[in-house]
């Protein structure tokens, strides 16, 4: 039973790290990234191939690199590679496209990426994927989960700290204003793409780290772990939890991703494992639509007043909608 709980918490932590990273991109800055999970996957794969050497997989298997660096180096490299790739993608797309086109392009890119990895074996062993990734520390299986949990919780704490710092800073203010109205921001001397690039890279770096944590926890990774669909689920979790607010991000990650997954385990099964996942996805879809309709800020909406020293006050919904209507 204890193992069950720690597994749950570990998963929750890693999911939270991802949603917090996505929050930096979408919640704080309004950059839509429908391919977030792709960066997670990159982090996972890179962390794996830089640490597992050539002898780990007994059945053979082809993949690039195959170094044996220590785990923390592999983890960092995974994050950095993800961030660099994010910068490249950003350069090509985010600046040029409006939101729906951007969505289509990012999902398409995610799919192509997935397709290539799945088909072209020499990269990361194709559809079979990588397994037997070395543990970060040799200890019993039970203890290992605790170790990973501690590590993930620690990294999550760092990410939350960073989110908070960014939010309560002129940098955060700049991001918010770019999110709301780029024309006004540039009318006062700011060029948008640099701060946006920075935050995009930070978000992707966090995704890469999360991927690395995943791979060291599960000790395996394959294309079935990062279907393009997963990015949507993260985004849904963020929106429902509350985009723009890291508590909302945490809530979304734990409740939506975790809670539902576990809750559906307790429901009577309609027969077959796929049903559990299907129910969960339906619930996510419905909740997402309802949330968008009735409470666009999410369960815990953005609260900026703390920083200016007043008790928090929710943004009046009318103000928000009216402004949006006017802006159209």
């Amino acid at each position, binding site marked *: 039973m204890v193992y069950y709980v720690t597994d749950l918490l570990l998963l929750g932590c890693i999911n939270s790290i991802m949603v917090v990273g996505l929050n930096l991109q979408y919640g704080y800055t309004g950059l839509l990234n429908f391919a977030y999970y792709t960066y997670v996957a990159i982090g996972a794969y890179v962390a794996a191939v830089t640490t597992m050497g050539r002898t780990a997989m007994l059945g053979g298997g082809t993949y690039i690199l195959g170094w044996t660096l220590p785990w923390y180096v592999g983890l960092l490299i995974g994050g950095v590679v993800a961030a660099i790739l994010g910068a490249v993608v950003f350069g090509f797309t985010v600046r040029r496209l409006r939101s729906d086109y951007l969505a289509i392009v990012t999902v398409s890119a995610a799919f192509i990426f997935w397709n290539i990895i799945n088909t072209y074996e020499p990269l990361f062993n194709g559809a079979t994927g990588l397994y037997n990734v070395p543990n970060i520390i040799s200890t019993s299986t039970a203890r290992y989960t605790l170790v990973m949990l501690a590590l993930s919780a620690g990294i999550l704490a760092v990410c939350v700290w960073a989110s908070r710092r960014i939010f309560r800073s002129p940098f955060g203010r700049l991001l918010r204003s770019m999110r709301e109205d780029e024309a006004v921001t540039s009318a006062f001397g700011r060029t948008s793409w640099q701060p946006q690039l920075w935050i995009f890279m930070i978000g992707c770096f966090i995704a890469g780290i999360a991927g690395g944590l995943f791979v060291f926890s599960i000790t395996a990774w394959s294309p079935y772990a990062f279907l393009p669909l997963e990015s949507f689920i993260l985004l849904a979790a963020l929106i429902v939890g509350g985009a723009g607010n890291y508590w909302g991000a945490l809530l979304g990650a734990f409740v939506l991703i975790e809670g539902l997954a576990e809750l559906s385990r307790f429901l009577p099964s309609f027969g*077959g494992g796929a049903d559990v996942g*299907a129910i969960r996805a339906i619930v996510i879809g419905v909740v997402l639509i309802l949330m968008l309709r009735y409470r666009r800020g999410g369960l815990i909406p953005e609260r900026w007043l703390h920083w200016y020293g007043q008790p928090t006050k929710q943004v009046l919904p009318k103000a928000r909608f009216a402004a949006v209507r006017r802006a159209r």
Partner: protein
Amino acid sequence: MCGGSGAFTKRRIHHLLPLQLPKDSRGLILSQFLVAVGFGLATASVVALAAVAVSLQVSVTNFINFAYGDFMTFGAYIAWSATRHGINLVLAIILGGIATGLLGVLANILVFRPFMRQGVRPVTLLIAGVGLSFVVQNALTLIWGAEPVRFNVTLGNSLHVGPFILTPGDLAMFATSVVLLVMLHLMLAYTKFGKALRATSNNADLAKACGIDSERVVSITWFLAGLLTAVAGVGLVLQESTLDPTTGFTELFVIFGAVILGGIGRPYGAMLGALAIGLLTEISGAYLNAAYKTSIAFGVVIVLLLFRPQGLFATKGKIS
């Protein structure tokens, strides 16, 4: 943890073995090419229906609905269960079409219209569409299971029609597609509704001022779009012979490719776009690993959106 629906990838297994022809003369290379062209036309006819549907809907509502792929799958499933209950194929397709049309109308009423009334940003509609896609796709999984089912109707062996190798199914689909598109064109050009639709797509407010009930136009457009999408869905499934809840969603981006190539919101452009994409994917698929075919379509989409989002045939105005 890893997603609620089954396999995402789909190997496009053609009912004919691809191109294991002896490689000598140039004549054979040409015929290889033409065979691929034939496949391209067959694919194009299916994609065209769906692309036109999407374009019609976008032209009157101004946003892209991400759940269309799943509408296609829905229509295909309805038709499939109908045939399993002994209903004749043509009737089953009609049934599927009507069911999907109604689904479209329902989606509009329940999901999209309230948002549009609120005056939300396009992102929100997009995400709502994604949410809808989750719901539909997984509802299908719940009802019919995640395992692929076989949906195939053998109408005889492949024929050699000129330089092309096609099955009677392909030909039937092609014919159906052409008929439907012609009917659509006639409707758009000559009926009162068609005119109302064109007016609304051009300028919704102006159309309303002229007494056109744009809500009704929108509802009927959703119905039509759903209907066409369902037929396309069935056509797609018959080509592949297998159907699973993710079938439509994977096709969605190929369809988007066609829509964008032809210019978003321009149904006539979408027909040409479908032709282009169908040919492109099949021909390149003949020379590269077949598994990359869908990636190629996606690649086209990306390149287009980055460099020429107005499509290949950019002129002013939507439905000419």
